[in-house]
C-alpha cells in the first residue's frame, strides 16, 4: 500500500498490513472481553494453529472492542467476518479445526439472537450492528491497536500529513468548523469555533488537552475508543495542535482505565518512533508532543477547568469562566480541551472533507453519536449511530427491546447529569438540541434503559447520590444543596415523604441550576427534574399511598405467601436469616412483616412462585 510520498507513512515491512487477504482470527482484547479470559482464548488459538501448522498463514489478531461486550469474549474470523460470541479458551481448538481447517463455522459459538430462530453468522447481519454507522469505532475490532501499521493501513496519519503539508492552520479550523462537528463531551459546542478561539489568543505556549476522564457510572465509550483505536485520538490531537499553534498536549485519562493507558503509551511510543510526534513533523517545521496524565478518582475532573487544575497537581476544583481555557487555561496559558471522540473525528473530517461529514446525521448535529447502551435491554454494549436516529430505533432495533417481555419505562441519557425520557419521547430524533428540548441531554454517551421493574424515584436518588458524593465542595449550592435534595429523595423512598417535598425538590433544583459554579452542580438536579416531569405519579405513589409501584423500595413493600400456592416445602423458612417465616411442614407458611428484613431471598428460592411482593395500591 503506498500512501503519498512520505517515508513515514509506508510500512516497514509491507506484510504487516492488516487488510491483506490473509486469514485472520480477531480476538477482542478490550476491558470487557479481557476480564472473561480473552487473552487465554488468543493463546489457545495460537497453539491450535501451530498444531495445525497454520500459524504462518493465519494471523491471530488482538483488537479493540467490538461493542457487543455482553456477548464477550468476541472472536471474529476474517475475511468472512464470522462473529463468534462467548468464546471460551477451550473453544479455540474447535474454531481452528472446524472453521479454519474445515471451512464450517462453529455453530454453537454463533450469536443466537433472542428475536430470531437461526443463529447469525456474520458480523453485520447481527441486529445489534444493523442500524449502526461506525466512523469513530470503524477501526475497533478490525485493527490491532498496539500496531501502528494497522492504523496507517487504514489511512491513518494521512489527514495529519495533509494538514502539515497542504493546509494552513486556519484552513484546518475552517474545515472543522464547516463540518459542523460539535463537542462530544456533551456540551455540543462547535469544535472548530473552539479551536479558532484558542488560535486567536496571542500567547505561547499553548496546550492541547484531551478529556478522557469518563466518569459516568456505566459509560465506557471513550475507554473503548482509546483501547481499540488510540492513534485516531492522537492524530486528532496533533491536528488540533497544528490548528491552534500548540506545542504540547496532555491526555487526561481515568486511572481506572489501565488498559487504555497502556495502549496509549504504546501508541505514543510508536508515533514518536515514526516521527508523527516530536520535532519537525513531516518536515513541516511543526513540532508537537504529548503525555498522559492519569486521573486519581474524581468525577468532577471531567469539567474542563477542574481537569486542568488536576493536571497542574491541584485539587480538582473548577474555576469560574471567564477566563475561558482558550484565553487562560493550563498554567494560565491558552488551552484547548476536547473530548476523546471530538479529537478522533478530526482525521476523518480532514481526510474525507467537511461535506462528507455533514451528510451524516442531522443538519444541526452532523456526524454520529456513540452510546454505551446498558440496563434493561436485550442487547447491551457500545454502539455508534448517525445523529437523528430515534431512541426507538436504538432501543428496539439495535438493543432488541426489553427482556422477559417487560414494559419499557424510561431511557436515561447523559449519566448522572442527564435526564430520563418516557415512552412518548421514543420517536424523538437524537441530537444535541432535540434531547435538550425533551428534558434530557446528549451527554457524553451513557444510555441506560429502565423497564417497569425500575423504581424511578430510586433511580433519581441513585444518580443524585452519585453527584452528591462527587461534588467538589467549592460552591455552597452544589456542596450543600445536593445533599439536601438527596435527603428528601431518601426520605421519599423510605415512605416518609410529604407532598410539599415535590415543590421543595423543584425549588432546590432551581437553586442548584442557577447558582452552582460548574456543570456538575448545574446539571445534578436534571435526573430528578426529568423524573418529576415524566413520572410524577410514581413520586405521588411513594408519598401519598406509601407505595412503590415498581416494588423496589424496601420500606414500602411486604413479602407475602400465597397460601393456595404454598406447598409447605419449608425452603423459604430455612433460608430466612431473620426467622420471619413460620409454618408446619406441608402447610402454608406465613411471613411476619415485623421480622422480615425484605432481603428477597424467600422470593428467589421459592420453587412454586408462592411468594409475592406487595406494595399498597
Amino acid at each position, binding site marked *: 500500500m503506498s500512501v503519498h510520498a512520505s517515508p513515514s507513512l509506508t510500512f516497514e515491512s509491507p506484510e504487516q498490513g492488516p487488510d491483506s487477504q490473509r486469514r485472520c482470527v480477531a480476538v477482542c482484547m478490550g476491558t470487557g472481553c479481557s476480564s472473561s479470559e480473552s487473552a487465554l482464548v488468543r493463546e489457545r488459538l495460537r497453539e491450535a494453529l501451530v498444531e495445525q501448522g497454520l500459524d504462518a498463514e493465519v494471523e491471530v489478531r488482538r483488537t479493540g472492542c467490538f461493542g457487543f461486550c455482553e456477548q464477550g469474549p468476541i472472536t471474529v474470523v476474517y475475511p468472512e467476518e464470522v462473529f463468534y460470541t462467548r468464546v471460551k479458551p477451550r473453544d479455540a481448538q474447535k474454531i481452528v479445526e472446524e472453521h479454519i481447517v474445515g471451512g464450517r463455522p462453529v455453530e454453537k459459538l454463533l450469536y443466537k439472537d433472542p428475536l430470531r430462530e437461526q443463529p447469525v453468522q456474520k458480523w453485520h447481519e447481527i441486529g445489534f450492528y444493523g442500524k449502526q454507522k461506525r466512523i469513530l469505532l470503524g477501526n475497533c475490532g478490525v485493527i490491532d491497536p498496539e500496531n501502528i501499521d494497522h492504523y496507517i493501513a487504514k489511512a491513518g496519519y494521512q489527514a495529519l500529513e495533509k494538514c502539515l503539508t497542504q493546509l494552513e492552520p486556519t484552513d484546518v479550523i475552517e474545515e472543522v468548523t464547516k463540518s459542523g462537528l460539535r463537542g462530544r463531551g456533551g456540551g455540543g459546542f462547535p469544535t472548530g469555533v473552539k479551536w479558532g478561539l484558542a488560535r486567536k489568543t496571542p500567547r505561547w505556549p499553548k496546550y492541547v488537552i484531551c478529556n478522557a476522564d469518563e466518569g459516568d457510572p456505566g459509560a465506557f465509550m471513550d475507554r473503548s475508543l482509546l483501547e481499540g483505536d488510540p492513534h485516531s485520538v492522537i492524530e486528532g490531537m496533533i491536528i488540533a495542535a497544528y490548528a491552534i499553534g500548540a506545542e504540547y498536549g496532555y491526555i487526561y485519562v481515568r486511572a481506572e482505565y489501565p488498559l487504555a493507558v497502556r495502549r496509549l503509551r504504546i501508541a505514543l511510543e510508536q508515533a514518536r518512533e515514526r516521527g508523527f510526534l516530536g520535532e519537525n513533523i513531516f518536515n513541516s517545521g511543526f513540532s508537537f508532543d504529548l503525555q498522559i496524565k492519569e486521573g*486519581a478518582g474524581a468525577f468532577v475532573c471531567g469539567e474542563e477547568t477542574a481537569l486542568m487544575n488536576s493536571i497542574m*497537581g*491541584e485539587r*480538582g476544583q473548577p474555576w469560574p469562566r471567564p477566563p475561558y481555557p482558550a484565553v487562560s487555561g493550563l498554567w494560565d496559558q491558552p488551552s484547548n480541551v476536547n473530548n476523546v471522540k471530538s479529537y478522533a473525528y478530526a482525521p476523518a473530517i480532514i481526510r474525507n472533507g467537511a461535506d462528507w461529514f455533514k451528510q451524516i446525521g442531522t443538519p444541526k448535529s452532523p456526524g454520529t453519536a456513540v452510546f454505551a447502551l446498558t440496563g434493561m435491554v436485550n442487547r447491551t454494549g457500545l454502539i455508534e449511530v448517525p445523529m437523528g436516529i430515534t431512541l426507538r430505533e436504538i432501543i428496539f432495533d439495535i438493543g432488541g427491546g426489553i427482556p422477559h417481555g417487560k414494559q419499557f419505562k424510561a431511557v436515561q441519557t447523559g449519566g448522572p447529569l442527564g435526564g430520563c425520557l418516557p415512552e412518548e419521547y421514543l420517536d424523538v430524533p437524537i441530537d444535541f438540541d432535540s434531547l435538550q428540548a425533551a428534558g434530557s441531554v446528549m451527554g457524553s454517551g451513557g444510555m441506560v434503559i429502565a423497564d417497569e421493574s425500575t423504581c424511578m424515584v430510586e433511580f433519581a436518588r441513585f444518580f443524585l447520590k452519585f453527584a452528591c458524593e462527587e461534588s467538589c465542595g467549592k460552591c455552597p449550592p452544589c456542596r450543600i444543596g445536593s445533599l439536601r435534595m438527596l435527603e428528601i429523595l431518601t426520605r421519599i423512598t423510605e415512605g416518609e415523604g410529604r407532598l410539599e417535598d415535590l415543590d421543595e425538590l423543584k425549588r432546590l433544583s432551581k437553586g442548584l441550576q442557577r447558582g452552582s459554579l460548574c456543570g456538575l452542580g448545574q446539571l445534578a438536579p436534571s435526573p430528578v427534574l426529568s423524573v418529576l416531569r415524566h413520572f410524577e405519579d410514581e413520586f405521588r405513589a411513594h408519598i401519598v399511598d406509601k407505595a412503590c409501584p415498581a416494588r423496589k423500595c424496601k420500606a414500602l413493600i411486604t413479602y407475602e405467601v400465597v397460601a393456595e400456592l404454598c406447598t409447605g416445602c419449608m425452603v423459604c423458612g430455612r433460608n430466612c*436469616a431473620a426467622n420471619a417465616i413460620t409454618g408446619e411442614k406441608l402447610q402454608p407458611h406465613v411471613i411476619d412483616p415485623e421480622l422480615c*428484613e425484605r432481603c428477597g431471598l424467600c422470593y428467589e428460592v421459592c420453587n412454586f412462585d408462592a411468594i409475592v411482593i406487595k406494595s399498597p395500591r
Partner: protein
Amino acid sequence: MGTHNDAVDLSLMDDVFREYEGQRGALIPILQKAQEKYGWLPPEVLNLIAKKLGIPVSKVFGVATFYAQFYLERRGRHILRLCDGTACHVRGTPILLTALEEHYQLEPGETTEDGELTVELVYCLGSCALAPVAVLDGEVLGRLRQNMLLRTLKKRIDLAKPA
C-alpha cells in the same frame, strides 16, 4: 513491602523523585507512585513529598484527600471487602464480622497488626444471590460461612498467628 511495624523506608521514593524531577504538576503522579510503593500514603511520605517539591504539607494533604484513589490509612497486603448490603446482612455478615473479631481482633476498617489483612465493609457488591458475599483481593467468595471464611483466610494469607 515491610511488615506493619517497620518504619517507613523513605528511600523507596528516591527513584520517584528522580523520575519527576523538574516536571510541573507532578504532585498527583508522585502520590500515585508513592501509593504503588507503600500501598497507602504514610504521613512521613506526604511530608517528604512536600519537602522535595517545595510545596506546603497542607497542599499535599488537600490533594491527597480530594481524590478517591488515595488512601491515607494503611491497608493490609490483602483486602477483604465484606458486603453488608441488606441481603448479605440478613444472611450472616454480622456473624462473619464476629468471627473476624474473635480470630483476628479486626473490626471493619481495621488492619491486622502485621499489616497483612484489611477488612472493609461495603454496601452491596451486586452479588446478592450469593449472599453473604466477600471479595478477597478481587476474588468473589460467595455463600460464606464462618469456618469457610476463616479457612480461606488462613490458607490464602500468611498471617503471623491466627489465634
